[in-house]
């Protein structure tokens, strides 16, 4: 079983800490990595891909240098990370910008800062469930962390191991 990673990208250390702290419950099955710029994130993605899969990217909108949307677009174009779920974390009040970004990068979701932990959990849970459903065959390890209903449904449709 290859590990499924969560990658958080945020340039403000305090905000990054808060995101990672809020996601800690997921770390029982999904190790979290973090980066503060798009360039650093690229290096982290490479090292993640050597050990496992990139399940979810949670990326700040405005980063020093290359911005989050363009980074997520480039991840989407890379066949190795096309199926990774992409969520934009944005502090901008304007919706137009965000909607544009979401459409452009084929993002799966966006979260406005400041976020509610329950909302962040729900989004991450849902996105990781999608990823696991699409990319994993052994769904049992994720039943207790992710959406057990949906995973259970998929398990019911899977063939059982042969004979007793």
């Amino acid at each position, binding site marked *: *079983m290859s590990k499924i990673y969560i990658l958080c990208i945020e340039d403000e250390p305090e905000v990054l800490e808060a995101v990672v702290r809020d996601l800690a419950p997921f770390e*029982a*099955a999904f190790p979290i990595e973090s980066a503060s710029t798009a360039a650093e994130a690229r290096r982290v993605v490479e090292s993640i891909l050597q050990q496992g899969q990139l399940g979810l990217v949670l990326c700040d909108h405005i980063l020093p240098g290359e911005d989050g949307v363009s980074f997520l677009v480039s991840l989407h174009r890379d066949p190795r990370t096309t199926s990774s779920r992409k969520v934009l974390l944005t502090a901008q009040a304007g919706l137009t910008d965000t909607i544009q970004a979401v459409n452009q990068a084929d993002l799966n979701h966006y979260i406005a800062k400041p976020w509610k932990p329950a909302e962040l959990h729900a989004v991450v849970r849902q996105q990781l469930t999608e990823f696991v459903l699409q990319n994993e065959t*052994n769904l*049992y*390890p994720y*039943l*207790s*962390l992710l959406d*057990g*209903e949906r*995973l*259970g449904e998929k*398990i*019911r449709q899977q063939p*059982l*191991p*042969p*004979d*007793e």
Partner: protein
Amino acid sequence: MRMNKRKVVGIFLGLLGFFLPWVIQFPGLSFPGHVTLGIFLLAAAFWLTEPVPIYTTSMLVIFLEVLLLSAEGPLCLFARPPVAAVTAEAAPREFRLPARAVTAGSEVLVARPSGAFDAVKVEVLERGPDTVRVQSGTLSTTSQVLTQADHWLARYVPASYRTFFAALADPIIILFLGGCLLADASVKYRLDRALTRMFLRPVGTSPRLILLGLLIATAVLSAFMSNTATTAMMMTVVLPLLAGLDRDDPLKVAVVLAIPVGANIGGIATPIGTPPNAIALAALTKQGLGVPFVQWVLMALPIVVVTLGVSWVVLMKLFRPRTAELKIELAGAFDRSPKAWGLYVVFGLTALLWFTENQHGISSNIIAFLPVVALPMFGIVGKKEIHALPWDVFWLMAGGISLGTAIKTTGLAEWMVGRVDWASLGGFAIMAGLALLSFLLANFLSHTVTVTLLAPIAVSVGSVAGAAAGFDLTTALVTVAVASSYGMTLPISTPPNAIAMGSGVLQTQHLVKAGGVIGVLGMALVLVMTKYYWPLFAR
């Protein structure tokens, strides 16, 4: 297919085993017995090492039997021993026969129109170089005698190929088919989940009681469904409930272990609980020792209940929960659609008839055909569910059943067990040996394969050791079947174990520890049962 070392060795051993009896002659074993021994060794090697899927080995077994052992197979068809009419001498009841028609024991083999032979004792009057003059009251000029009494197929009455094919429609397979279809329909209408919730609802929030509830619920469902399907379903219901637990709370491990343990133990409870039970039953039925559904349940229930209790204690001791309270939410209700009601009625009726076999006398195998017919007829299950039946398991069972048939008809059984003076060993010792062998093999092999291999041996032993004090064939086969279900020490031992390992919660040592302790305690119980309880059901 990637050929790994194990597979290469398996194929080599299989072929070696298959051809060995063709090369080496074992005194006292007929030629067909040699052939069957070859097939048996091939099957054993393939089942142990799995160079091909185990159900394929079963198919191969049936194919080889039809080719080499059936009356219509090429071997028997083209190698019939020659027959000739006898010539009468001048004196009454005196005949002249070809020299080789008379055996050293002064017997001639008279062919019946059916193809079978009667051995007829004759009095040799004069032995010439080519012919022998004999006197017999049984022979007549219409008699066809084998001109070669030492022919390798002499005395062998081959069975029709239909016998080997018929194994696939063996009544026990039909019984199992009925059980499987009921289980599939229950999954389809979520009866399994609804029952689980019903079982778990009264247990409250105490981790201890939840664990006990889980063991019981899993065992009850597994008694009617396949152990694997029960485990898969229970995992999907239970794992989400553990989200609130601490990462390293041992309760998690205990809960995840309770499911495969409950499923493996629950499978013992009914003839349809798991294939080994059905195979043992099939072997018994072949011997005219049919065990009614309810009788099996009566035999198995005490050990199931006791081992569940033991498992509960063991799991609680090994993995002491850290939390004092686990709140579980169990939403969901019974499906109330007309089709679901149809399922409940068919299920209830079938179960009722199975448990009252003694009162009405209709075989549980026949009753099992009720759901097979009723469920598709009322549209409760469709083509999809029929296709999804475990056909590989049916083939595997059929291979075992037909192998048993061959071993018996070719005289291999008697020859194999004739080597040992069984009677001196004592009945209990024999049965305990079989039980331990079954337990050991089952830890490494599929349980079904284990029993498939051991059932014919047990039957053979029974046929000669019947005289041994305390030996009872029913007890022996039940022992073998039940013992196999306790083979759950390793992740590879059973698919429920594999699923539990796949959850990522367990480490192998957890499984080995719990499975080992429960398995060994279970085996001790099996031996107690073999000694004191099961013989009570002997006829």
